[in-house]
């Protein structure tokens, strides 16, 4: 492919992205924080003292949620960091299933990122300082694909495992229970 063609292609792609207002292919460099928040929805079974409103979604979520490169890298990390050894390809084993509608510690991407970073008391290891924040967010983004949360045009159509599991593009979206307040 000539560089001219490449430039043209990129232009077309960029135009398509701009037109669609779509962030799924955006690649972010890590130096630039992204502002703004995604409005949080109702949380069915978590108490938020005071006015009952859940905390605002961490603004970093927008860079990773529904973002194809982030999901792909998260998928790679999920295998290489041995998440798969405990949670399998979403069905669980030593650790709980991640493809169902149940979230012990919340299914919002920032809640999942917190779980990965800090660990949880019944055996979930703490990865803070073992993985970079960027890697943790990518993992959290991928974990949400196991229960079909991201939009289907962002996820990978093929898994890393042997055939038998439903591809992420066909994974039905579970309506999250517990503290998932993303509501998208």
């Amino acid at each position, binding site marked *: 492919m000539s560089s001219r063609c490449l430039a043209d292609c990129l232009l077309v792609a960029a135009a398509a992205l701009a037109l669609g207002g779509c962030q799924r292919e955006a690649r972010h460099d890590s130096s630039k924080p992204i502002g703004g928040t995604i409005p949080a929805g109702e949380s069915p079974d978590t108490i938020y003292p005071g006015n009952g409103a859940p905390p605002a979604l961490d603004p970093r979520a927008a860079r990773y949620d529904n973002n194809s490169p982030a999901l792909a890298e998260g998928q790679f990390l999920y*295998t*290489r*960091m*041995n998440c*798969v*050894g*405990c949670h*399998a*390809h*979403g*069905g*669980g*084993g*030593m*650790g*709980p*299933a991640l*493809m*169902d509608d*149940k979230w012990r510690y919340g299914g919002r991407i920032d809640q999942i990122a917190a779980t990965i970073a800090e660990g949880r*008391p*019944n*055996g*979930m*290891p703490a990865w803070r300082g*073992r993985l970079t924040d960027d890697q943790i967010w990518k993992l959290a983004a991928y974990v949400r694909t196991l229960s079909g949360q991201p939009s289907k045009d962002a996820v990978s159509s093929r898994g*890393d*495992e*042997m*055939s*038998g*599991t*439903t591809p992420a593009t066909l994974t039905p979206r579970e309506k999250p229970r517990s503290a998932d307040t993303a509501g998208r």
Partner: protein
Amino acid sequence: MAVTGETLRRVSTAVLILSAALSGAALVSCNKQPATQPNDLAKISPGPHALPPAAASPADNGNWEMPGKDYASTRFSALNQITPANVARLGLAFTFSTATTHGYEAPPLVVDGTMYLITPFPNNLYALDLTKPGAPQKWVFKPEPAAASQGVACCGTVNRGAVYSNGRIIFNTLDGQTIAVDAKSGRQLWRTQLGNIQKGETLTMAPLVANGKVIVGNSGGEMGVRGWLAALDEGSGKLAWKAYGTGPDKDVLIGSRFKPFYPMDQGKDLGVKTWPPEIWKLGGGNMWGWVSYDPATRTIYYGTGNPGPWNADQRPGDNKWTTGVFARDINSGEALWFYQTTPHDIYDHDDINETILADIPWGNGRRPVLLRPGRNGFFYVMDRRTGQVLSATSYGHMNGYLGVDLKTGRIAVNPDKVPKPGRVGRNICPAAPGQKDWNPSAFSPLTGLVYIPHINLCMDMAVSPANYIAGTPFVGADVKMYGGPGGYRGAVTAWDPIARRAAWEVHEDLPIWSPALATGGGLVFYGTLDGWFKALDARTGKLVWRFKAGSGIIGQPISYRGPDGRQYIAVVAGVGGWAGGIVDSELDPRDPTAALGFANAVKDLPGKTTPGGMLYVFALPR
């Protein structure tokens, strides 16, 4: 190379002729057997069958003091009040809730009017007073193991049992401690930290106590944990010796007394040389199953677990001393012999299953042997003095192996099934949990048969590079299991170790994850994953009694004589473990690789049972 079926049959015939010819001699030896109280063994057949050695299987005192019942690991109670003729009237005597909802694999222990229960995590120890109506609680000891240990237990937060010895109850906790408690007061006597959960090391096995030593081994073959077997001083809990399952000879306690029978197991530092550089440090060979003991020679017998990672391409070589049998001096821990049942294991075929001590008719007397229903699907009869394999016979559906060469001792792996990077191994039988997993068989001296509770599953297996991170899984494989041929997933096989064939076999729809119990009344008890507790006629396999428990049964049934002189049968129901994780851990079977592939084979189980933890004790009506 591999011994063909034809050769096996010829050997079998030869053994049969030999045993028949020498049955006279066997009779004499058999009649001298003081194994159990004369009353209880009134009906013993004097036939030329296998018998446990008297020293390792003394007269039944009506207690149940260790999971295997005796050092020979017979799981045979000589009590004979309950028989096929009256078992229909067997009814519930009392129950007790263990306050747990995870897989309950341990047996109750009974010692002189007190029953002891050790639960899965959090490993609480209950004492129940059998002398009072309803068996009220005497005390409970709570060791409070670290909660995080639940996250590094490969196959459920199970505990396989406590043991009674000299006024102490001794057991392991999931987070790596061995604890001794005063049996009368429930007061702690000592506790020793042996395992480190930061490395993914847990303790799930039941210790064996003999000759003043507490024998303990670690779990963690799926976490890159280097296996070991340790001996603690029974009185103080201090470490006496520790023998690793991989590494240099000095770590494995291999010295001048080590005399393996086959050349494949001979050589210096094979625990290093049969691995790629340094991989033996992460190589598994753990001991989370059963230890037997021969008091006559002060020798312990046990098998080692799978090598790690599961992806065998990352560890070319025989991977000593994983997936094989050790004989060791209990005092020093020195290895006496070793036989590697499955060199370079590919399918997670741990060799930690029970080792039953028996003496079988041979020559002009009896030959001391080990009876080992192997996870790889072969039933091994081995000379316990030398480690020589006398026979290795498949006791279920098998295509992953072609046979065992009795000359070299080497198993022949079917090359067509082996998964390779980029090539999924399909329809491999038996699957990763083997023809039979941890749940032990029972051996009846009345019939000479080994009652094997086992499974009939096959699998697809794909391998990928495993990445070692301490405290996380080190597996490198995706597995998907499903029912084997024949339309059943479990079986109880009454195996004749001399004739090397099944006397009878009973099929179960679901895989069997509960151990078996044989009784002097001629019954065999076992439980099913959906909660049926069943009694079979030990001679025919006919179902003579059953009871539906509130949760699936993977616990070890026992029989004891109560303070009132009556025979009782006890078992704890509580589904879980590797087979039942889909229920107690709410795994999602839409992912066929859940629970290392087991969830796929028992997709129907959540519709058939629910989690629980309940002791059930049965007796005949007064």
